[in-house]
C-alpha cells in the first residue's frame, strides 16, 4: 500500500514555477471590482514561492462567490458543497499528509453552515491552510446578512435590521486552538501575499481572515478604516516582537492597563507599549488584541498567533507507521484471530 502519487517533496529538486503556472484556463467570473480578484492574484503570486510541485497543491472550497476560487488556480481543485470544504480537506490531508492543502471559504460558508467544522479542524490542528474571505454578507445568494454582518444591518433578509451580534472569526479561531491565526485585507496586496506565504509555511492549521469588499451587496464594508486617507490612523499592524504603534507618523501606541488595552496618543517612546508576541502558547495576549473593537481601537491586522502544536495528520501517520513497523498487517492472521476450529 504505497501512496499512489508520482511526486513528493523531494529535497534538492524544488521546482521553479511562476505565477502564470498557477493561472487556469477558466474565465474568472466574479463581479468586476470584487475584492476576490486581489486575493486570487496574491495567491497566484505567492504559490511559486513555496517551491512545491504544482501537482501536490490542492485547493478545496465550499459554496459561495469566494468558493469559486479553485477553478481559477491551476492546481488540483475541489469545489465542494456549502460549508463542508474543511471536512473534505481534513480527510484528504489525513489520507495524504504529503499534499499541500488550501481551503477557501466565505463568512457564510465557513462560519455559518460550516462553523462546526472550522472549530474541529482547528482543535485537531490538521495541517491545512484556511483562507476565509470575509465580506460580511452572502454574496452568491445575493445579499442576505451573514454571521459577520454588523448588529442591526439592513439586508434583503433583514429589512428591519438584524437582531444578532456578529462572530469575530479570529476570536473563534483562537478559542478553537488554531496554531496560526492572522487577518489581512484584499487591498493591502503586499501584506496579503506575505500573510498567505507565512500561513502556508506554518505546520499545523493556519487561519487567515481576509477582509474582502463585495462591491455589489456590501460595498464599503471596511471603508471606514481602510480607505486610503484614514487607513494609518484606524488600523494597527501586528508585528512579532514590535511594540504596537499606528498613525500617520506612527505616533500612537497601545498599552495595557491591567488586562485592558488602551490607546496612547502620541506615545513618546516605546516604553510601556504592548509588545506583540505571536509565539505565546497561552492565548491571553491574542485575546486581548482581538478584543480591540473598532472604533474605540484601531483594527488589528496581521498575525495574532503562530505557535507549534501536535499536528493531527502527522500523528495519525505516525501511529500507522509505528504499528506497521512492528510488522505489517497479515490478512490471513486477522481472519484467523480468536478461536477457530477445523472441520475436515
Amino acid at each position, binding site marked *: 500500500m504505497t*501512496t499512489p502519487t508520482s511526486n513528493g517533496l523531494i529535497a534538492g529538486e524544488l521546482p521553479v514555477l511562476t505565477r502564470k503556472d498557477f493561472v487556469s484556463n477558466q474565465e474568472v467570473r466574479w463581479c468586476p471590482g470584487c475584492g476576490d480578484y486581489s486575493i486570487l492574484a496574491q495567491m497566484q503570486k505567492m504559490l511559486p514561492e513555496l517551491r512545491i510541485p504544482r501537482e501536490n497543491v490542492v485547493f478545496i472550497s465550499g459554496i459561495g462567490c469566494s468558493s469559486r476560487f479553485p477553478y481559477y488556480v491551476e492546481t488540483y481543485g475541489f469545489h465542494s458543497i456549502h460549508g463542508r470544504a474543511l471536512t473534505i480537506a481534513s480527510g484528504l490531508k489525513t489520507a495524504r499528509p504529503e499534499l499541500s492543502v488550501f481551503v477557501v471559504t466565505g463568512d457564510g460558508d465557513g462560519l455559518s453552515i460550516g462553523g462546526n467544522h472550522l472549530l474541529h479542524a482547528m482543535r485537531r490542528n490538521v495541517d491545512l491552510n484556511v483562507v476565509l474571505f470575509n465580506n460580511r454578507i452572502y454574496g452568491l445568494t445575493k445579499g442576505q446578512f451573514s454571521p459577520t454582518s454588523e448588529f442591526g444591518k439592513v439586508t434583503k433578509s433583514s429589512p428591519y435590521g438584524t437582531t444578532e451580534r456578529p462572530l469575530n472569526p479570529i476570536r473563534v479561531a483562537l478559542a478553537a486552538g488554531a496554531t496560526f491565526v492572522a487577518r489581512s485585507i484584499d487591498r493591502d496586496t503586499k501584506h496579503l501575499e506575505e500573510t498567505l506565504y507565512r500561513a502556508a509555511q506554518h505546520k499545523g492549521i493556519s487561519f487567515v481572515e481576509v477582509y474582502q469588499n463585495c462591491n455589489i451587496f456590501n460595498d464599503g464594508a471596511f471603508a471606514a478604516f481602510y480607505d486610503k486617507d484614514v487607513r494609518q490612523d484606524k488600523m494597527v499592524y501586528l508585528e512579532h516582537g514590535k511594540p504596537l504603534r499606528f498613525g500617520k507618523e506612527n505616533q500612537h501606541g497601545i498599552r495595557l492597563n491591567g488586562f485592558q488595552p488602551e490607546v496612547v496618543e502620541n506615545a513618546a517612546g516605546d516604553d510601556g507599549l504592548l509588545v506583540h508576541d505571536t509565539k505565546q502558547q497561552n492565548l491571553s495576549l491574542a485575546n486581548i488584541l482581538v478584543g480591540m473593537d473598532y472604533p474605540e481601537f484601531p483594527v488589528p491586522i496581521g498575525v495574532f498567533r503562530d505557535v507549534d502544536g501536535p499536528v493531527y495528520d502527522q500523528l495519525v501517520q505516525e501511529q500507522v507507521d509505528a504499528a506497521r513497523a512492528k510488522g505489517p498487517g497479515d490478512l490471513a492472521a486477522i481472519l484467523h484471530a480468536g478461536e477457530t476450529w477445523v472441520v475436515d
Partner: protein
Amino acid sequence: MTTETQIKPEHIVEELDRVTIRFAGDSGDGMQLTGTQFTKTAAVFGNDLATLPDFPAEIRAPTGSLPGVSGFQLSFSGSDIHTPGDRPDVLVAMNPAALKTNIGDLRPGGLLIVDENEFEPTNLKKAAYVSNPLEDGSLSAYQLVPIDITRQNELALEGLPLNAKDKFRSRNFYALGLILWLYGRSMDTTVKWATEQFSRRPDILDANLRALKSGYNFGETTELFRVQYRVPPAVVPAGTYRHISGNEATALGCVAASVLSGLPLFYGSYPITPASDILHELSKLKAFGVKTFQAEDEIAAIGAAIGAAYGGHLALTGTSGPGLALKSEALNLAVMTELPLVVIDVQRAGPSTGMPTKTEQSDLLQAMFGRNGDSYVAILAPATPSDCFLMAIEAFRIALKYMVPVILLSDGYVGNGSEPWRIPDVSALPKIPWSYAKEGEEYSPYSRDPKTLARSWAVPGQKGLEHRIGGLEKSGQTGDISYDPRNHHEMTLARKGRVDRIASDIPDLEVQGPSTGDILVLGWGGTYGAITSAAENARKNGLSVASAHLRYLNPFPGNLEKVLRSYKHVLIPELNTGQLSLLVRGRFVIDAVPFNKISGQPFKIAEIEGKIDEVLGRSGPYVFEFPQSSGLSGG
C-alpha cells in the same frame, strides 16, 4: 472435529435435530457472555448455529427493571439452519423481569429454568408482577424448573476472597455450566476462554470456574433433569471455522478490500448504534495502514471520506439510518463528482431515533432516493453476518470499477448477529483492479470508459493532471462548469447508466426450490434465514414454493424479471412497510405481494409460512401474533 460429549449413562439421552435456547437476565447478569460461550462451544462441536443478541436500550437500566433485561438467543442444530429460531425451547430467566419480558416467546411445553432466589417482593414489583408467577400457577404451560441459583452459587464460592457482589456476578457461569451439562457439552471452550480473559484477575477467574463447574455438577447430581439432550454435529464443508458477527465481518471485509486492491483504507465515521463496532474494529487495524477518523458528525465523516477518495484512497464511511440521512447531501457530492466511496448503513428501527437497538430494513428507499435530484448509487445488502465480509469486498470492487458510491445496507440483526464462518483462503480471493489516469496523457475528468461508463480518475500528486471537480454540473467533454441543457440531460443519464451497467457484472439471482411454481418468496438482507427456512418447510409440506434472495438492490441482477415471471405469485417479506415491494412492482409492473412487519424484531419462520399459506389460499389472512408483553412500555 468434535469434543468428547459428556453424556453420562445413568441419564436418559434424547437426540434432537435442533434446539433453541434463550438466556435472559438483567443487563448486569452477563447474559451476552453466557450466550456467546454456549454458542462457541456448540460451534466447536460442529453444530450449525445462529444467534440473536437483544440488548436493552439503556447503558445500565435500574437493576431488576423491565427495560434492563438483556437476552441472548441461539439455535444450534445437526443440520443446516438459517435463523436463531422462532421460539425458544429453553428459557433461562435470571430474574422476574427477564421472565416477564421473555415468557411470551417460550414454546408451550418448553423448559423454563429460573433463579428462584430472585423472585422476592422487590424484584417482583419491579417487574410489575402482582403475585409470584412461580407460585400462582400461571406458568403451568411450561416445564418449570426453579433453582436457587444465587444461593447454590454462593455456597459453591464460600471461602473465596471476593465480596458478595462479585460472587453474585458469577452466577451466569453457574447457569452456563448447567446448560452445558444439559446438552452434553464440554466446559473446555469456556474454561480456556475464561483463563485468558481473567488472567489478570485470578480471584475472579477462580470464582467463575468454580461457578461453572458447580452448575455443571448440579445438573449431573440432582434429579431435577431426568433427560439429557444430544444435538449431533452438522455436516458442514471442510475448512477452518471461526465465529463472526456481521460488524466484525464488515470490518474484515473492508481491510481485505484494502489488501486486495493495494489501496490504503480510510474510514470516516461518527459513533452510532449499531454501527459503532465497525469503527472500534477498524481503529485497531493500523498495521494495515488503516486510518480511522472519528469526525465531529456524520457530515464531516462522509466529507472526510470523500476527501480520501479524492486523494486516491479506499474510502469508507459508516453509520446507521439517522446518520445516513445526515450524509445525504454530501453523498450527492460523491455522486456528482463520481468518486469511489463505500457507505455502510447498519439499519435500525426508525423513523428518527426510533428504537436504536432494534433491527429493521427500512432504509432501502432512503438509500435509493434520499438525495436531491436524480441521483443513482449502487446498493448491496449482505444476507447473513458472514456474508458481510464478501459484500464489503464486492462494494469496493464496484465502487472502484464504476467510480460510483456504493451503499452497503447491513442491519442490526445482521451486524450484531453472529454465525460460524469458514475462513476463506486469502490467496484465493481475487485482486480488486483499479487505475488512475495516466500521467503524460491528455486528461479530461469526465471522459468515460466506454464499457463501464466510469470516468477517469486522476488524483492529487499526479503530475500534469491538475483539474477541478465539484458539485456543479460539468461538461462531459471539457469538465468545465456547464449549464447546457443537453449536457445535463446526457450527464444525468450517464450517471444512471453507469449504475445500470453493473447488472452485467454481478451474479444472476439464484433460486432455491423449483424454477417455476406457485410462489417465489423474494427477500433481501437479514431476512435470508427466515425466508429460506420458511420456503424449505413449505416444500417439505409439498408446496410449490421457491425462495430467492437479493444481495444486489441497485441495480437488480439481470435475470430478476425472468425469475419473477416464472411464478404465479411473488411474495416479498420485509421488515418495513414495503420498500423492495415498491421497487419491484414499479420496475416490472408485477403484482408482488408485500408482507411487512415493523416491530423491530426479525421475522419468525412461522410468520412467513403463515403468509405463504394465505397467498396460496390455504388459510385466511395472516395476522401477526405479537408477544403478550406488548402492553408494557419499554418492554
